[in-house]
């Protein structure tokens, strides 16, 4: 068996004495979609921010393809091919799509000046794939619709050959057509061998797209299961009660039998 694409082992992080994430272990194989589920405040976003370099874990380790990875900043994470689409999208509203997509990784000319034309060209190509109707390349992102902004955030994540993609509530702000589009994209990326962590509230989405689910409650892992082995009701039981079904691998946060 090959090593997982990414493995987080025994991750803990506390803010002001409150353990937001407590001894959580999750893993992700190439071409796999793992959904992270849990109530608001269960610690999903915090866990994922440890992987994306926004937070530093107090304890635990991260392995990328079996090798210990030191991730202290978002830049480190990107070096390992870990890209994140944040729930807030994390776009600079005052600059255009190309500037956002290349933020921190700008293309420059021989003289060290920004190569806006080359960046716009690349942006047009990647957006043609994601959102063929997108035309507003010169406008600040502020002027775009929710779906268009989402496309820009996704384009930023996938343009740089990500191997591991983190999607934090990617469809929360989208209409049904755009949600379906994101679903298509997830399948496409999966086929390319990219591993995806999907954070979602929508259990239907999760059963459509994810191969496995990991459920968190109060900062602890309830358990991990293959979506084909469990029912939606069982997963809801994990989220609400912390009750781990038999088909799932129990985590430290599971309710005592």
């Amino acid at each position, binding site marked *: 068996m090959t090593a997982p694409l990414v493995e987080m082992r025994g991750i803990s992080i506390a803010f002001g004495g409150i353990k937001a994430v407590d001894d959580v272990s999750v893993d992700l194989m190439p071409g796999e979609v793992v959904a992270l589920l849990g109530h608001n405040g269960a610690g999903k976003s915090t866990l994922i921010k440890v992987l994306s370099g926004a937070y530093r874990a107090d304890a635990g380790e991260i392995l990328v393809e079996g090798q210990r990875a030191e991730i202290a900043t978002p830049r480190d994470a990107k070096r390992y091919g870990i890209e994140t689409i944040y729930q807030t999208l994390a776009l*600079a509203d005052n600059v255009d799509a190309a500037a956002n997509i290349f933020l921190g990784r700008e293309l420059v000319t021989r003289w060290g000046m920004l190569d806006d034309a*080359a960046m716009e060209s690349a942006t047009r190509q990647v957006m043609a794939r994601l959102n063929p109707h997108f035309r507003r390349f010169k406008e600040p992102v502020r002027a775009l619709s929710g779906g268009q902004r989402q496309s820009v955030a996704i384009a930023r994540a996938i343009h740089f050959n990500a191997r591991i993609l983190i999607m934090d509530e990617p469809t929360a702000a989208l209409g049904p057509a755009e949600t379906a589009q994101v679903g298509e994209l997830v399948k496409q990326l999966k086929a390319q061998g990219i591993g995806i962590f999907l954070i979602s509230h929508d259990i239907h989405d999760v059963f459509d797209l994810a191969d496995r689910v990991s459920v968190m409650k109060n900062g602890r892992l309830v358990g991990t299961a293959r979506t084909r082995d469990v029912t939606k009701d069982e997963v809801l039981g994990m989220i609400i009660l912390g009750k781990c079904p038999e088909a799932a691998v129990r985590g430290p946060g599971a309710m005592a039998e």
Partner: protein
Amino acid sequence: MRHLEVDPRLVGMLGALAVIWVGFDLLSGGAFLTPRNLWNLSVQTASVAVMACGMVLVIVTRNIDLSVGAVLGFVGMVVGVVQARWLPEMLGLEHPATAFIAVAVGIALGGAIGLMQGSLIAYLGIPSFIVTLGGLLVWRGAAWWVTQGQTVAPMDGRFRMLGGGIEGAIGATASWVLAALACAAIVAVMVMLRRRRLAFGFPVRPAWAEGVLMGLGCLVVIGAVAVANLYPIPVGVARRMAEAQGIPWPPGGLFIPHGLAIPVIVALLVGVAMTVLATRTRFGRYVFAIGGNPEAAELSGVNTRRSLMMVFGLMGALAGLSACIATARLNAATNAAGTLDELYVIAAAVIGGTSLAGGMGTVAGAMLGALVMQSLQSGMVLLGVDTPLQNIVVGLVLVFAVWLDGAWRKRIR
């Protein structure tokens, strides 16, 4: 208008400036729009305009720098002492290197002060308002300590050229050469950018629109130089210069034009360099991204703290340069130099369209803002308005301009 793709706010500001100029000219009976007044106006604007370029970046990152006037005062004193007391002892009076060393000391000292304040803001997380408010008091006090309040004068002869005046203007021929170079640069840059967009198959302005913009740009350059060349140096000085060069004094007198003033050239070069920095470099892109969404910039891997510190370092270095210009112009270093300049600089940036909410602003706008402020002030002096009333008017205009800008911005949303 639509084809030109010019920033409507820039056009609005130019319109406002035209109204102010023509208005003062009418009120003063034709005394405002004279080569002499416009030339002096340009020289008076230089120091604030240089600092306004840096303030744009500071405000774009959602910060403020209240210390620039005090930094100008302190650096001015040090620069004065260095060239009037230290360097003459070490190198001899009027040594050719004195001016260069003095300017280098000024820029380096200003930059160091800026970096220090910037590191407190970026790494210790102290609000910039507080750090630079403290800086305002500290550096104003330090300016007094340098000489226990004594004024230092006179300055080195070459250094004085930085302040304008008769020795600080480059003359007619050099001005025209500079104008030709500037026009060539405008045309070359516009052609290059257009070619680049065409190479990628992007939409471009129609050719006639590019032509109109090029023409306007060159016209402004040529007009400015023509005005500067219409302002002759005083008869007495001209006669002495003629005698020194053995030229007989003609009966009708000699018309020796000033040409562009050196401080104005310095300010324009700073403006061009800062525009390139703000719009064409990674650093500039990061500055704007931080202003738009600091968290997003951080998550994108931008070293936001370092960028922030550099912005304040740059602001300090420009305040150091302005200190040289102001000291040279006054031909003396006084510890009160630059008093209230922080407010003029901030006002210039804000009138020039820099949003205090961060993320928006242009260097060109801020320089125009500085020119608007100075025009108001200089126009009122010409009309004999007394100082308290001048301040009242400038204050009201500032508030009105920001309200107008905000109202306009809401309408386009």
